[in-house]
């Protein structure tokens, strides 16, 4: 059996082991790589930067722990940016399983920038209904979320009173970080086009290609895709964290996959030509 024939019949578990090694070694030895900033991510950063201190930003975190690796670093980086700019943050979930993660991100970022719950940020919590929730918020935000996640009446919270927030029209920027349905699509279809706020998005790598047309049409003002997007945002904010650390193992694992794709194709071509000759 020739080398290429062996390669064609390689046990897939050898590939798993090689990928594991490609991830474990750079993780242990903390190999760092330069993160280049892409235009769609830069546009999110610039949009947040363009807001005046005290402006309200709504962050909708529509994901669950299965997408934590990619989307939690995005949430944290965006929160750090907002708090550094002294923006007021409303956070919410359209997915029930993401509530704990958002609470964790809020408390981490708030502690770092000494922000107060109720006056600097409000966690609205989870509301079932997806698109219906967005439409409801567009008509009457306090009616859709009468209480925050800690069961405090929303209308009595300093942030809501001070800013006079009644509907989505009172919010200049919505950041939708989503892993599926309901998520960015729902915010584009039922929110942005209806109520006219500026919308930027963050999504898992799997979904990124679906959202690029929204960038082209201007329905999304910026987009972060997958771990790379999160790492870019961390770099822009100047707080390299989990996503930035995970980019070098990511690159090494990609190199292994690329090598196997090339080798696999060479083996296929060689074997095919051998068969033809026979």
């Amino acid at each position: 059996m020739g080398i290429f024939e062996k390669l064609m019949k390689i046990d897939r578990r050898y590939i798993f082991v090689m990928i594991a090694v490609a991830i474990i070694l750079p993780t242990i030895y903390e190999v760092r790589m330069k993160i280049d900033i892409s235009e769609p991510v830069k546009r999110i950063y610039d949009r947040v930067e363009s807001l005046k201190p005290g402006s309200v930003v709504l962050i909708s975190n529509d994901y669950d722990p299965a997408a934590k690796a990619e989307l939690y670093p995005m949430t944290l980086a965006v929160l750090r940016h907002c708090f550094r700019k002294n923006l007021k943050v409303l956070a919410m979930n359209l997915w029930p399983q993401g509530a704990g993660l958002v609470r964790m991100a809020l408390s981490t970022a708030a502690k770092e920038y000494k922000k107060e719950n109720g006056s600097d940020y409000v966690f609205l919590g989870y509301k079932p209904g997806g698109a219906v929730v967005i439409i409801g918020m567009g008509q009457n935000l306090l009616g859709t979320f009468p209480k925050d996640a800690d069961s405090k009446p929303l209308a009595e919270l300093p942030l809501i009173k001070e800013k006079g927030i009644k509907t989505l029209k009172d919010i200049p920027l919505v950041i939708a970080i989503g892993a599926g349905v309901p998520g960015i699509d729902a915010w584009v279809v039922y929110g942005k086009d209806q109520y006219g706020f500026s919308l930027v998005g963050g999504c898992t790598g799997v979904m990124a290609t679906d959202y690029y047309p929204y960038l082209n049409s201007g329905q999304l003002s910026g987009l972060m895709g997958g771990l790379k997007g999160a790492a870019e945002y961390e770099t822009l904010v100047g707080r390299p964290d989990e996503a930035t650390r995970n980019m070098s193992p990511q690159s090494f694992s990609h190199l292994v996959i690329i090598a196997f794709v090339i080798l696999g194709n060479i083996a296929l071509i060689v074997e095919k030509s051998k068969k033809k000759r026979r």
Partner: protein
Amino acid sequence: MAAEVSEKKLEEKKSRVVILVALVGIFVAVNIYLFAAGRLPSNFEGLGIMIAAGLSLAIYSFLYRDNPIYKFAEHIYIGLSVGYIIVYNYYNALKPNLLDKLFFPPPGERAELWLIVPLFFGILMFFRFSPKHAWVSRWSFAFIVGYGSGMAIPRGVKTMIFAQMEATLRPIEFFDMYGNFNFTAIATLIAIVGILAVLIYFFFSLEHKGPLKVASRVGVWFIMIAFGAQFGYTVMARMSLLIERIRFLLGDWLNVLRS
């Protein structure tokens, strides 16, 4: 011959059980060392990390082959997720929005009797569990489908078709206001060629011959490139999940990472 085969299978099964027990033994031994050496805190946090590490390894054991430990972890995951969603929805939706308003209104407030209507339609959904009476649940589904379609179709058409068409039909500006060449115009041109070629590929009323054949081949190339981009992003996403788990195992569990 048959006896030999069954004996071989029995042997294989035995060796698998031995491997399984050995792996569980190694996992227990590693945890005892981690707790004894103070690498894992001796409290509920440490216990949580140990359980999470065990379940992560159990799920990844599927990469070797299907096994009972993987199935055990998989069932725990599904059970926990469903249980969490039910409880979370009960306390965040069903109780405050329906039960409290209908049956336990705050003192001085009246019960909102109109909520009997959604309650009624909600109860009808449970008829799905009875094959004989499943048709009753169609009333609720009819309501959901009617409401959902009415809400989604006009907005969907406007946002996903008209807005995208408008973006495609915008005039291409090859030069900006200062007379410099606008490179994004090339991207727009490529997008327009791609849209037309892919549309022609899916146009089946005429036989794909001559110029139509060429255009549809170009369409296939665009589709393949789109699939490639999607696959690349999918690989990146899956790797991200693996990296996060490996970082958890090396950092939080084994404590061998510096940061």
